[in-house]
């Protein structure tokens, strides 16, 4: 089987699930990595190291910024010319669009966010979550090529072997797009609580770190807010490592620790992230309705009786000021950041 693997990146930072897709492609046969952008030699080198048999690069100033139409057209033209059996992409905001449009161009179908992919006879059978993960379906695509995006961390990542190398082949860019890129805001809280896949939240407990000494001259309330802000800095570090957003309980917002836009719960936002980590949140009912549909809930609280533990899948009864930084370090190591 001949597979094209699209290596998704933002300004040269590769979405690691791209390498996982490359591993899947290798297990099915011949794997070609496909890279779009400008000045992407480093990515081509990495693609060989992760096992690509061939690397196809559309290196063009007009592809510097992702634009759905241009990227989809470049992919479709390449696939028309070289007729792969399968095109794999990691699931990201970009690839959902590219895969969607390429399926229209190539008169085939698209399978999104797979957690499994297997060859049964001569048919590729995809497994994917539906109904918010309440069910899974096995689906097949009768068109050619089969276009599929793979959920991150659902497939093993191949080892990087620095001794592997090769020379990338240039392919043509189809850079026309009706969309003009004006710029980026890559702000600290760029992803809103509502849109984030991972949310790390702080509650009233975030202001209770007794080991901190506020700067001189603060009154009691100022000192409390100052302590809370130090606490939210720990929460933010963890959110950043996980690529997530910072949330807050109503108590934390009412306490003036953090702006209202971060609030989770009935009067704030109802959110359904894949992972919700509650730090120092006891779990008032309006907070629980705001987050209980998160796929995985983790609670860190010093009070073992806190209602939040009744909603959580994993809990730590302990001092968040020690646990949260330790968790940040653990993820840094395990995620290779």
């Amino acid at each position, binding site marked *: 089987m001949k597979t094209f693997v699209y290596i998704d990146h933002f300004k040269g930072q590769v979405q690691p699930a791209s390498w996982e897709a490359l591993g899947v492609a290798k297990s099915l046969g011949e794997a070609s990595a496909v890279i779009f952008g400008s000045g992407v030699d480093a990515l081509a080198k990495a693609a060989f190291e992760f096992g690509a048999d061939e690397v196809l690069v559309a290196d063009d100033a007009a592809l510097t910024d992702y634009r759905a139409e241009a990227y989809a057209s470049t992919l479709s033209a390449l696939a028309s010319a070289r007729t792969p059996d399968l095109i794999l992409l990691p699931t990201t905001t970009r690839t959902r669009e590219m895969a969607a449009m390429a399926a229209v161009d190539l008169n085939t179908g698209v399978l999104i966010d797979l957690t499994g992919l297997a060859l049964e006879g001569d048919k590729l059978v995809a497994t994917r979550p539906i109904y918010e993960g309440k069910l899974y379906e096995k689906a097949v695509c009768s068109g050619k090529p089969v276009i599929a995006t793979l959920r991150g961390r659902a497939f093993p990542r191949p080892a990087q072997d620095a001794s592997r190398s090769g020379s990338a082949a240039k392919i043509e860019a189809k850079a026309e797009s009706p969309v003009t890129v004006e710029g980026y805001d890559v702000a600290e809280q760029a992803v809103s609580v509502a849109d984030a896949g991972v949310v790390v939240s702080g509650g009233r407990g975030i202001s209770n770190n007794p080991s901190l000494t506020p700067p001189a001259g603060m009154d009691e309330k100022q000192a409390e807010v100052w302590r809370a802000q130090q606490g939210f800095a720990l929460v933010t570090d963890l959110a950043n490592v996980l690529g997530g957003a910072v949330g807050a309980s109503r108590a934390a917002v009412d306490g003036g620790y953090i702006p209202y836009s971060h609030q989770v719960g009935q009067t704030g936002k109802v959110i359904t992230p894949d992972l919700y980590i509650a730090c120092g949140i006891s779990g008032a009912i309006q907070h629980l309705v705001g987050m209980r549909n998160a796929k995985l809930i983790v*609670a860190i609280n010093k009070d073992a009786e806190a209602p939040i533990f009744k909603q959580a899948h994993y809990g730590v009864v302990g001092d968040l000021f020690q646990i949260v930084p330790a968790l940040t370090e653990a993820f840094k190591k395990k995620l290779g950041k």
Partner: protein
Amino acid sequence: MKIIACIKQVPDSEAKVKAENGQVTWGDAPLVINPFDEYAVEGALQQKEALGGTVTALCIGPESAREALKHALAMGADEAVLVSDAALGALDTVGAARVLAAAINKIGGADMVMFGRQTLDDGSGVTAAQTARLLGWPMLGLVGHIKVEDRNVQVSRVIEEGRQNVSAKLPAVLSLVQSIGEPRYPSFMGIRKASKAEIPVWSLNDLGVGAPASIVTRAELITPPSREVTCEIIAGESPAEIADKLADKILAEKVL
């Protein structure tokens, strides 16, 4: 400004969705407007308020999907259209996009077509981009902020790394995310108006298209092993040990 909001009807998020005899069932749980599509309606109404014009809600579904369209009307949409046909049983995403594009053309086109980011049922989140591709219009995906000036639309797109700000000429297809603003509740007057509204039903024949072939088909439904929500307490000798164990548990859940 002519704006179309594409919506779908789905089982409520609280529904206990199950597989029974190879079919998806949800007991007597209510069918509702797809929650993400409420943002499409909200965004459409915001633009109508800012620029003037009309909002038409468009839905593919069975007769029961009228209720989802009535919700959009009660929120403030001016018109609603239901595309319903016995031949539309198992549409894949490209098929749905073909039918929507035909319906948008029959409505007489639009300046903006709004979608939600994805549906609660299939969850692929690709129909907006496929509809844009079929119409040949710019696709502005995952939009959290919209500004229209003359025939130019400027938007802020919520992506993994932050926001990408882009612009395009109208007409355009947009998918909207929560940052657009909380969907308004239907007003009393709105609900009364919606209950009396005539909702035309268009068949494939009315649209002048054949039933799209389903290229993607479902072979099997799988019920994931149920996970009791009993909290597993992670303990250890030190914060580092607890954190290490907890990180492994989270990674094993494959939610990152």
